[in-house]
């Protein structure tokens, strides 16, 4: 590709589609032709795309469960420790360890830990955060264009022509080329 050297980054060849149905058909065509899709970008979650791309189901809920369990045990354990070990006080003649009264706070801490933990994990595994600059190929991808991207860094002229033919065949609106940091 024009003036491109392998040491400066990766060369991404991507096509833009104007409809999610065309995108899904194009991904199916790529799978049939054994083309190795690097990434797909869409303006909104497109249902049915994950199995075509072979994406495994997200395991975020497991993180949520673990953090929630920690919050639950921490909340209940802390209140138990305070009222039975650290500073036992009798409130209204009730037992020190008055379990029913601990339920609301235990519940709130379960939810708080699960939510905060899961959201944090989400941003970390996605590499998102203030100042994060992941690969952004085209400004219209967050608007109305559906993008299929191939890594063309190590591809020869013939393979690139194949990909361009594939884009033309599947109805891509436009095909672009962008060098991104490795």
């Amino acid at each position: 590709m024009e003036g491109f050297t392998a040491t400066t980054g990766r060369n991404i060849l991507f096509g833009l589609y104007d409809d999610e149905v065309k995108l899904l058909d194009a991904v199916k065509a790529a799978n049939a032709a054994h083309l190795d899709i690097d990434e797909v970008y869409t303006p909104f979650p497109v249902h049915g795309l994950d199995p075509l791309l072979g994406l495994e189901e997200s395991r975020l809920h497991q993180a949520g469960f673990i953090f929630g369990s920690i919050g639950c045990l921490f909340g209940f354990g802390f209140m138990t420790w305070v009222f039975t070990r650290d500073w036992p006080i009798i409130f209204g003649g009730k037992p020190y360890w008055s379990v029913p009264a601990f339920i609301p706070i235990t519940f709130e801490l379960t939810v708080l830990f699960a939510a905060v933990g899961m959201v944090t994990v989400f941003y970390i595994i996605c590499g998102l955060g203030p100042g994060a600059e992941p690969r952004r190929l085209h400004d219209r991808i967050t608007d109305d264009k559906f993008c299929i991207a191939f890594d063309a860094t190590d591809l020869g002229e013939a393979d690139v022509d194949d990909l361009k033919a594939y884009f033309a065949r599947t109805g891509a609106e436009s095909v672009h080329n962008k060098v991104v940091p490795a």
Partner: protein
Amino acid sequence: MSGHVAPVRRPLITGSKTYHQITEDICRPTETAPSLSWIITFIISVLCLGLFAFSVAWTIWVGIGSWNLNRTINWGWDITNFVWWVGIGHAGTLISAILLLFRQKWRTGVNRAAEAMTIFAVMCAGQFPLIHMGRLWLAIFIFPYPNTRGPLWVNFNSPLLWDVFAISTYFTVSLLFWYAGLVPDLATVRDRASGLRKKIYSIASFGWNGSAKHWQRWESLSLILAGLATPLVLSVHTIVSFDFATSVIPGWHTTIFPPYFVAGAIFSGFAMVLTLMLIARKVLHLEDYITIEHIESMNKVILLTGSIVGVAYLTELFIAWYSGYIYEQFAFLNRVMGPYYWSYIGMMLCNVLSPQIFWSKKMRTSLFWTFFMSIFINIGMWFERFVIIATTLARDYLPSSWSYYVPTWVEICIFIGTLGLFFTLFLIFTRVAPVVAIAEVKSILKSAGDQYIGPHAHAHHGHGHHVPAGANDHAAGTTVDIEDKDDTEIH
């Protein structure tokens, strides 16, 4: 995306929108100069916020004695306003969480603004317990942290402390949920911006790029947060009601309080959402996204929750009579016919009787009556909290200490001030972030857009393509005659 759509479903997006038009329409308010009406409203809100700062400073400087609370009536406008604001803060999470679990597509048009409203309302609510402490700088004592006073811990058996945990958890989770939904839309704004705005939105959108894996995780996150927020939203107002229900004051010590408070909270929250959305759709030209369908759905929720609240009011009276316990009976007789009878009448009129007009489809789909009712319900729900708090306390165990409470100018100004805080924040929000969830609206376009479903559906964007924004109200308002045209084929 499209899938099967039941024929009874009406379009939720009108004007034959394309994906790009949705982006344009919803991003526009953040990209253009504010209108004159926005500027005037903003100035008024900021002035009210100034009044808040002044009256709070006055309270702190002079002391709680500047309020008209006394030994008999130790909770007045402060806690009334607190409960009122917390109640309003319930609709957002209900819309975004419970309606997400129920797969209600109409939530996409209003969830963003409703969640923002939730967050701002909870911020307003939080002011009152803080100011009520008098010594604001000791507010940190409400959290159990290792301290040099023993360490002396807080009372984990107290509903007031449960409230601290419930409200702060609710605020945090709502904020995280709202912002996670906002990230992709802020990225949309970023990709349209240039210069300094692009820099700011780049930071705010966390570098979102819309990759398939990110969307998958994002949807998973939304669903689980919705699952967590659903019991949370119910727990918060339950715990607020425990502030009253676990005390031994006749009129407060009732087991009906938790469900009654939760229904009331949803009721008042939806009313406030309607108040805001009816104005926002007009001012920001979002009539195609917040349609009569959305408004009608919300009015149905209002009718349901208003009726639940009505049943609760009557059940209270019945149980008081049926208990055979004279102190309980007196408390409720006093509530209805005592010195604050006018607030009880206001509550019954605004909350129970007037929402019944929504049994009529004509009323549910009328913008005027919806707006009128939303204001009416906001007032009625304020009266409800005032009735529960002030009238109960005004006639306590000792007739010699009976009292009558009227707020001082300081208390009134603090309340007006929180309205200023709320509207200031909301108006800023309408300028800096997409008021409607762009990505979510796009994801329902093919199953809820009027060119795909409904009487005017046509596959190849032919006639009726450019419906003027103003005309849609009229078109949607007269949906009664849609029934006749239902045989129109969806090509």
